């Protein structure tokens, strides 16, 4: 962020490209305009910047050599996985390169007895579960994009999914990393064993949105598939009742694997798209998945049913087999793409609130929707209070997008006012950096910057993301304490 990147000359670009080719070969460097277009944005397509080059390294050493070159030339670089991110975290930087990890796709070690899998960052999320499911294990974090998104991207964003209420998010399943620091040094942190001496760098890097370096190897924890699973689908006339059911269930001491709510817009769109068996005329549905030892699930099922009935559920269906369960979940996971059927465009918001405030926040969103004259569809990870309001708009209508962004921003303000967060799983990236100050004051942001500066003094690694305003790094010890004249004269103390 500190470095000013003046437009580079053609001859410099040619020389730099030659160096990159020398490191990873001609097939690993993309430089033609028509191919670079594919890397102009991630899944947040509203912002586009063309990188000068894209490189596709195959090894850690290649990543390191490329970064050393960037460090030497003061060229910013942006890591990229599958480009499914929704906050613009992989948006290229002006006059910078993109380092795509899509060719680092090896599963390096499957260690079933120790419940560990070591992968390269380009491995697709679902492939981890596929590699271990025959032994009865799975990798728990399951973002909706899990059939395409990569582990490297999940690490950067600390991705969640529909089962994180009980099992946690990516950070709870990553035990170690190999990474290339912004000056090209390769380090290993954490690993297959627990309680390493030293600060928890693994925990810091997970969710750091690619600002602290590029992860080249990830050690994951896999877990045993549960003995029993029961999935309930409850429908309600009013979405507030679905919301109250959620806190009602946890208040009874039941922690389901996941709890998901969809409103009537989503139900209709999803039914049209995939036919998941949702009641089309319901005001809202709530999906509840219980898992664990058979006796535990059997004990919890009637408690959940009771809570649902107390909260005016019209109908409760329990999936009768694995096939029906998958269908219930397929509906949920296709909620975003299905929106295309009821609106030409949609903007996905990602905010978090305490789950006890679901009903009141939904009412406020409804009011905002009226105020702006834009429809808002609601689908969310209700169990952990993670809302995904979808603002429906038409980009061909003048001013619709601006109004949409304003409305989406107001929703975040509501979340923060209720003691929540501006992002639960999509990240701050480029899209939300101006909202970070809603949650954090200058001291908080300065502290985050101290951390970033420990990794990246030059500010070359995914610059321009996360922080609301550019922050520079000050070398410690550069500002010696100076006494105020009043203190010098012994007239007073200033602490």
């Amino acid at each position, binding site marked *: 962020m500190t470095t000013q990147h003046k437009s580079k000359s053609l001859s410099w670009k040619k020389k730099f490209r030659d160096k990159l080719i020398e490191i990873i070969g001609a097939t690993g460097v993309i430089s033609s305009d028509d191919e670079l277009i594919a890397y102009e944005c991630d899944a947040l397509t509203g912002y586009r910047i063309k990188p000068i080059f894209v490189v596709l390294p195959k090894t850690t050493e290649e990543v390191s050599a490329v970064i050393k070159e960037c460090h030497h030339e003061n060229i910013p670089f942006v890591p990229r996985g599958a480009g499914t991110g929704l906050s613009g975290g992989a948006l290229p930087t002006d006059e910078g390169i993109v380092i795509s990890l899509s060719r680092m796709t090896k599963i390096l070690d499957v260690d079933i007895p120790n419940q560990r899998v070591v992968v390269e960052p380009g491995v697709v999320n679902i492939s981890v579960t596929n590699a271990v499911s025959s032994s009865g294990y799975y990798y728990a974090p399951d973002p909706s994009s899990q059939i395409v998104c990569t582990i490297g991207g999940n690490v950067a964003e600390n991705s969640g999914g529909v089962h994180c209420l009980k099992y946690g998010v990516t950070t709870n399943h990553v035990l170690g990393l190999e990474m290339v620091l912004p000056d090209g040094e390769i380090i290993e942190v954490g690993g297959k064993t627990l309680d390493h001496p030293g600060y928890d760098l693994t925990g810091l890097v997970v969710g750091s949105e690619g600002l602290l370096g590029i992860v080249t190897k990830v050690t994951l924890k896999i877990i045993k598939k549960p003995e029993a699973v029961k999935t309930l689908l409850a429908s309600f006339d009013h979405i507030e009742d679905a919301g109250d059911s959620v806190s009602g269930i946890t208040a009874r*001491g039941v922690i389901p694997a996941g709890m998901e709510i969809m409103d009537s817009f989503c139900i209709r769109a999803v039914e049209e798209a995939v036919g998941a068996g949702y009641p089309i005329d319901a005001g809202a549905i709530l999906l509840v998945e219980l898992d664990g030892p058979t006796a535990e699930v059997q004990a919890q099922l009637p408690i959940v049913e009771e809570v649902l009935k107390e909260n005016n559920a019209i109908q409760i269906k329990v999936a009768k087999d694995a096939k029906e369960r998958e269908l219930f979940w397929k509906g949920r996971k296709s909620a975003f793409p299905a929106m295309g059927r009821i609106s030409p465009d949609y903007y996905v918001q990602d905010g978090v609130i305490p789950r006890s405030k679901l009903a009141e926040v939904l009412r406020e969103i409804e009011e905002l929707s009226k105020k702006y004259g834009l429809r808002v569809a609601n689908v969310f990870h209700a169990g952990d209070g993670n809302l995904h309001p979808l603002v429906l708009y038409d980009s061909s209508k003048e001013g619709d997008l601006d109004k949409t962004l304003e409305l989406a921003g107001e929703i975040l303000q509501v979340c923060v006012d209720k003691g929540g967060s501006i992002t639960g799983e999509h990240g701050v990236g480029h899209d939300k950096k101006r909202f970070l100050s809603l949650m954090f004051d200058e001291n908080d942001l300065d502290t985050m910057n101290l951390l970033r500066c420990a990794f990246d003094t030059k500010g070359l690694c995914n610059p321009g993301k996360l922080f609301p305003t550019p922050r520079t790094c000050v070398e410690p010890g550069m500002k010696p304490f100076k006494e105020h004249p009043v203190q010098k004269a012994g007239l007073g103390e200033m602490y």
Partner: protein
Amino acid sequence: MLKKKIVNNLLRIVGEKNALTEEAKLKSFSVENVQPGIVLFPNEIEQVSEIMKLASKESISVIPWGSGTKSALGNLPESVDVVISTKNLDLIIEHGASDLVATTQCGITLKKFQSALNKERQFLAIDPPHVGRKATVGGIIATNDSGPERFRYGTLREFLIGLKVVRADGSIFKGGSKVVKNVAGYDLPKLYVGSLGTLGIIVEATFRLYPVPEYSETYIVGFSTLEDAHNTVSTLLKSDLVITSLEILNPELVGSLTKRNDLDLIDDLYTLAIGIKNVEKAVKDQISTLKMICNQNGGKGKLIIGAQEEQLWEDIRDFPWELFKAERVVCKASVVVTQIPQVLTTLKRLSDEYGIKTYISARAGNGILIISIKGKLSSIIDSLNSLRSFVSSIGGHLILQEAPPEIKARVQVWGDFGSGLGIMKKIKLNFDPNNLLNPGRYI
């Protein structure tokens, strides 16, 4: 010695009532036998900030202190000027029972915090040692302490979702949030779990909580060989059982536990302690399955419940500190779970070779071994060094949790920090440029 002027300024911040300066009283706040110049008991977070601003200006060292139960962890200190006790910062700020989260000031003891949470049938899912000796929430965060139930729930990094810290320069910041799911900004709470007070004084924390399980039983079962015990563990880990705690106790430890608890176990056997907490029927169903698995591997066991069960787990958590009142040597080895038998065998060999006695409780599902060693100083030093080189050779780590200064002078406390050490040092430098906080003890 602290300059008179500095002492006076410190006293002005907290008030004379909230400070100790008399020689006799300072002794119990010594760090590795080094006595501080003053102990402060701030009542407000602002006071902690004022103290740190003064400390930065005067370049005096500061030791954050909860109840001092783990003050033996770390290298010998470089300097001990001021101890800041968080004892008076013990307010529970908020317990959002329906959101399963709670925020508290960090000087509160875990015991007091848990009993407040228990009123709503919830708890912080951590079972470290020293709870009876007033271990504080802040101290447990700073040392990343844990116990047998980490097998089911994990360690504090999984539950600490937000915190407030006073940095070395006195600035107060917060990280994380008060909701369970949040990815806004860096995950600063992770940095502070296990940071040993070197990056700031943790004054407030927000945790994710769990409902208190309805029912609990423990099966304790001895095996005639280590191999049988380990095979049982492997089968249990592959099974569908959801176990809360799973410990392998070595024969020496079994001997001393059975005497304390009237357990009537066979002293010279490797023994598993297996705890299950759940709804009653799920506990009973699973206990009967695990009994069968244990029997198939030749295990002879008994079921314990109620007060005796609680006492057993407390004794397992606290054994190094309960069995030996002084001159304790405690270390923690971490390896992958399949290598636990190798470590146990190595410890047996070292015991025979050096004439030491080792007491071990291994978190069988996590690969963590808590080891307490009795013997001649020189034998302990030699055996610790060989144990470390063995554990390192199989990709693990050995940390010295507690030992007399004579041993620390000859055995590294932390071992190899790995290739991340450079970054850790830069973080420490950026957060505490004058090296005021717990200097020398860690990073």
